[in-house]
């Protein structure tokens, strides 16, 4: 299910539509790379498509529409079936942030093992922080007929 693909997982038509969607939705910024320029763009997309059949078929449907449109803009996409567009966007969104280059650019290390025993002091509760809560006392309503 998660084997990276080295060959294109698309028909030529789907690929050209995919590129246009990637350029529209992930055009790159001063910090983040453009999706179609990622060195692992095609294998990542293959991996994304293999992970979720339903979103993959939504993506393929929208990619075909994108390949056929004279131009792919926000306005063009707004005329396509919105449920399917959202599925296609979800697939591309998750796939884009799978890229190591993108994660590095935005300073996101990815989910990983960070043992609790290594927690920094600024991740821990302190007596000082809790003191006002304790000072205010109990908040619960006791069971009727029983003492607090």
């Amino acid at each position, binding site marked *: *299910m*998660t084997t990276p693909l080295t060959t294109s997982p698309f028909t030529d038509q789907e690929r050209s539509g995919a590129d246009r969607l990637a350029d*529209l*939705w*992930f*055009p*790159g*910024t001063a*910090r*983040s790379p453009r999706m179609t320029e990622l060195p692992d763009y095609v294998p990542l997309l293959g*991996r994304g498509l*293999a*992970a*979720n*059949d*339903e*979103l993959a078929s939504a993506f393929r449907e929208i990619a075909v529409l994108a390949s056929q449109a004279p131009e792919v803009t*926000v306005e063009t*996409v707004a005329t396509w079936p919105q449920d399917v567009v*959202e599925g296609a*966007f*979800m697939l591309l*969104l*998750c*796939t*884009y*942030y*799978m890229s190591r280059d993108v994660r590095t*650019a*935005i*300073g*996101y*290390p*990815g*989910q*990983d*093992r*960070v*043992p*609790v*025993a290594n927690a920094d002091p*600024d*991740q*821990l*509760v302190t007596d000082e*922080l*809790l003191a*006002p*809560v*304790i000072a*205010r006392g*109990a*908040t*619960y*309503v*006791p*069971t*009727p007929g*029983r003492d*607090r």
Partner: protein
Amino acid sequence: MSNSASARHQAPDDLDALVIGAGPSGVVAARVMAESGYRVRVLEQGDWPNVADYPSTKLERELIQAGPWNPNPNVRRGPSDYPVNDSDSDIHTFMFNGVGGSTVMFGAEWPRMIPSDFRVKSLDGVAGDWPLTYEDLQPYYEMIDEMLGVSGLGGNTAYPPGAAPPQPALPIGRIGRIAARGMNKLGYQWWPGTHAILSQADGSRPACSRWATCVAGCPEGAKSSFDVSMWPAALAAGVQLTTGARVREITVSQQGLATGATWIDRDGAEHHTSAPLVVVCANGVGTPRLLQLSTSSRFPDGLANSSGYVGHNLMMHPTATVLGCYEDDLQSWLGPIGQPIWSMQFAETDTTRGFRRGSKWTIAGIPGPAELIQRIYSLPLSERSGMTGQEFAERFTGRAFEWVAQIEDLPEFDNTVTLDPDLVDSDGIPAPKLRYKMSEESARALDWHIDRLTEVHLESGAVFTHRVDYMPEVGWHLLGTARCGDDPATSVVNGYGQSHDVPNLYIFDGSVFATSSAVNPTSTIAAFALRGAEHLVENAAEQRIPL
């Protein structure tokens, strides 16, 4: 359904008890009975979960979670699952069908109900009182905490005094500290989270490594998913577990006692297991479904249903969140994902707010940029995509977290689980149909809490907030459909989970909840099961069983 008269002619299975469902309630009951010398067999429609299948550590985690590992069985559609017709329900059910039950996917937030939750009728004049009190359950809460290795900090001001959790609390993270400062400014109660997650290694199970992917399956085994935290002890005590066994019907004798269950294996073959006691632990949807499937001339409206309450009063905890984005680096991809800090400030009734009962608040981190963008789903696509979306992720990844309000849902008789006339599972067994409408009062409560949560974020320094008014996709707490009570005319089981109608039939899962509380239910489900099973064993001499 036939009442399997033939069951009486089958050879007995040499068991003392049959348990249906291998989730928390099922395994707790089975373990207690087996440790007391009972010969127990558990039938579970699912399989043992396999850590290698968990999306948690995979790059495409979010995509797998949106499909083959989705908590909604209608999306996941695995061989262990049954479909749920939720077309007439404001909230869709979440569950995992397999050994460990839904805890395989749960967030392991481990709060207890508060004393007033057991006395809603007496205090607020609505719903019903439970036939037991907080004080009755407290020793069982504490025993379960010990068995699992629950982590937390003692002395929570929202609760009566008692034993501290056996393990130290998990780190509250930078998100916990910034949220706590906002709460302190407003003078609100909060506390470091109590979790069914190890903060220190215990036997073969390691401590939490803060993946924040708890709901995608804990890759470490630190989370007390009941397959890893309770099943090994149950098996060691001699419990027999049969997986891939989907129960179709609980069979009864002519005297109206349960005799066992008819079930279907993965090859479609039908079996019957006889036992003098039957314990149903199939959750708030699976249990009423099974009772309704088990009709007979004696129980034409479903087993244990002389009250007409089976399948009614479904409660599901409407939930809303407010995303807050900050300028500080909060490392908000660090776990635990649920309740690093939480609050019961607004859990009790104050009718000046315009609704009764209250809500539990928790904070939750955002594991990554894709999940961050998904949190602003209600904005137009043009604001979530293109350079705008990318710049949002650049600016706020690791700098955002949610405040979550989980509303106490009062029981409404017309919120139901019934059998769908058309939809069936892969074995041809009728599927459950939900009818669930969120009440006006719950809707008012959600609005009120969302406004307050936004204020807390702003007080903590958030530079951007975004509210998600209510989420249809979070029916993870399935409660109330076989409620407990003292009066057989208005309840299905007593305070020990014993059916009023069928004295050798017990129910221990979340269907027994008379009211829903605002807190996550599993510590109460497990404590109720422990207390009920202990009572059952201690009163064996009085137990009526089929001859």
